[in-house]
């Protein structure tokens, strides 16, 4: 009974609570038990069980008083990059050891104001820098799709814990953040839905910053409708984020019932890489057929600057990261390695506190921003970024959404790419372009490869047109069905 409750989606659980089929206490207990049972996955890095139990009692009381809010009693796990008041938040970095925020991120605060309950802070790549969750100081996450007797597969990253906990049916929804693919890539690897909203749609306030012109929060869920429901509650204007968009949030959940006849779906030819495994190109072709069968119009489009997106990203993101991470100095918060003068304090603290990949990216950022190199690297990358955004603008004159694979491979074994940063960076080849252009994008589970591992297809939409994006995503979902790991499916 209790593990069945943890398998409910957001909308199903909300209906069950409203109908009195279960209580918030039962639902929260079921998720706590499921997370406990999935302990070997290493998805949860901060224990929130006691708080969650107290919040569940409160939620049931509100419901009895007919004061239930839209997400009253719904458990949600939150990536360890969102500041949660009174709950340790470290972005899975040693340098934030012992940090307990005095404030709550806008996005998570909105969830709690809508009645949702925090059940689990989730594991992630350190400061969201990684595509496999292996840079976490809390250790790697095991993908629930890993073969029982085989090697541990990575869940993707950086929101690896959030994707894995949802895939393991140990919570109905989780929050992640996406800078270059950190929601969509793990969603694809774990067989769940991952939505990156338009840049500016959700407030960045209270989210530990990686690259401020790219970071965006979004949901990971087991259905498109649930992703829409969560987005509806976390989106919206926030005066505390200077790039927050002052736009009304559409009724996303209701919009899913809309008609998609005549939808124009673009297929970018530059994404047809020779190196793409046939399981992925076949699935992509299948996706095209599904849309055609649903009455959509398919068009080949060109995004000529696609191949420059990753190199541009690896200038822009590290440059912004080196500036954002300058605040970790061992003085105001987090861990400290003492020195005899301030400079020694800084250099020791940052050496001991940051992991290898984070130090590497700070070095790249420091170099491209340094005197004499700024124009050649940073300025040029921002010009290339303009070109990439123009490509998309051009394409969206002829189509309403773009259909691409989410990742160039399925989940790979732990340790496979840790010695080669460039091989790791290539994981985000299909997700980074939309990030650079600030566009909304979603990964929808679409099939399994020959090894039985999940693969996602990505849809990219126009800026602030999450409605069309989600409508298109439901077509994929309806055609493909949903996927649960064999260990969880029983």
């Amino acid at each position: 009974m209790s593990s069945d409750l943890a398998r409910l989606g957001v909308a199903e659980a909300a209906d069950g609570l409203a109908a009195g089929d279960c209580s918030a206490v039962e639902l929260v207990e079921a998720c706590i038990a499921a997370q406990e049972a999935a302990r070997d996955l290493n998805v949860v890095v901060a224990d929130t069980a006691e708080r969650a139990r107290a919040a569940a009692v409160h939620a049931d009381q509100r419901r009895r008083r007919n004061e239930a809010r839209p997400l009253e009693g719904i458990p949600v796990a939150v990536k360890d990059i969102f500041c949660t008041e009174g709950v340790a938040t470290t972005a899975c970095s040693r340098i934030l050891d012992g940090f307990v925020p005095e404030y709550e991120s806008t996005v998570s605060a909105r969830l709690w104001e809508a009645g949702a309950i925090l059940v689990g802070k989730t594991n992630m790549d350190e400061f969201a820098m990684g595509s496999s969750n292996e840079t976490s100081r809390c250790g790697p996450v095991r993908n629930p799709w890993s073969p029982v007797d085989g090697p541990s597969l990575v869940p993707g990253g950086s929101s690896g814990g959030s994707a894995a906990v949802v895939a393991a049916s140990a919570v109905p929804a989780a929050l992640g953040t996406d800078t270059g693919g950190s929601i969509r890539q793990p969603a694809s690897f774990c067989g769940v839905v991952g939505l990156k909203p338009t840049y500016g749609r959700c407030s960045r306030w209270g989210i530990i910053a990686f690259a401020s012109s790219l970071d965006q929060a979004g949901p990971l869920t087991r259905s498109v409708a649930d992703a829409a429901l969560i987005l509806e509650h976390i989106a919206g204007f926030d005066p505390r984020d200077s790039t927050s968009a002052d736009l009304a949030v559409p009724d996303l959940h209701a919009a899913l019932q809309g008609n998609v006849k005549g939808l124009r779906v673009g297929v970018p030819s530059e994404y047809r890489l020779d190196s793409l495994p046939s399981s992925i190109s076949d699935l992509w072709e299948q996706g095209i057929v599904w849309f055609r069968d649903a009455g959509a119009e398919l068009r080949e489009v060109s995004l000529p600057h696609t191949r420059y997106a990753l190199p541009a990203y690896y200038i822009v993101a590290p440059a912004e990261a080196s500036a954002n991470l300058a605040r970790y100095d061992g003085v105001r918060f987090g861990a400290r390695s003492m020195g005899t003068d301030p400079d020694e304090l800084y250099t020791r603290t940052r050496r001991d506190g940051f992991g290898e990949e984070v130090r590497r990216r700070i070095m790249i950022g420091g170099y491209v921003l340094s005197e004499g190199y700024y124009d050649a690297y940073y300025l040029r990358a921002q010009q290339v970024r303009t070109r990439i955004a123009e490509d998309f603008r051009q394409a969206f004159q002829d189509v309403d959404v773009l259909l691409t694979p989410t990742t160039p491979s399925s989940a790979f074994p732990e340790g496979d790419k840790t010695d080669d940063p460039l091989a790791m960076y290539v994981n985000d080849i299909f997700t980074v372009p939309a990030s650079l252009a600030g566009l909304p994008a979603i990964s929808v589970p679409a099939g399994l490869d020959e090894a039985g591992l999940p693969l996602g297809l990505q849809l990219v939409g126009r800026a602030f047109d999450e409605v069309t994006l989600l409508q298109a995503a439901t077509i994929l979902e309806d055609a493909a069905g949903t996927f649960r790991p064999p260990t969880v499916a029983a």
Partner: protein
Amino acid sequence: MALTDDDVRRVAELVRIRLDETEVKPLGEELSRIFSWIEALREVDVAGVAPMTSVVEMQLRERDDAVTDGNCPDRILGNAPAAEDGHFVVPRVIE
């Protein structure tokens, strides 16, 4: 594009990350490999292209220049590795 040992030392100093002398060479080689991959950007014609400064088209907002927060030294110092009498504690700066 190859980074020299001095480049590596200079950048490490700029970003305030202590580096052991034995790490300089391998790190330089690794960063050089990443930068030669980034060199592809030189192929793009960017003449007359404005660098992206705003990801989505929006007007920058203004607000009143007024204090809206503050008077909470305990909360601000609450996460400090060392604090005393309402101050952060750092190593001696002036002899």
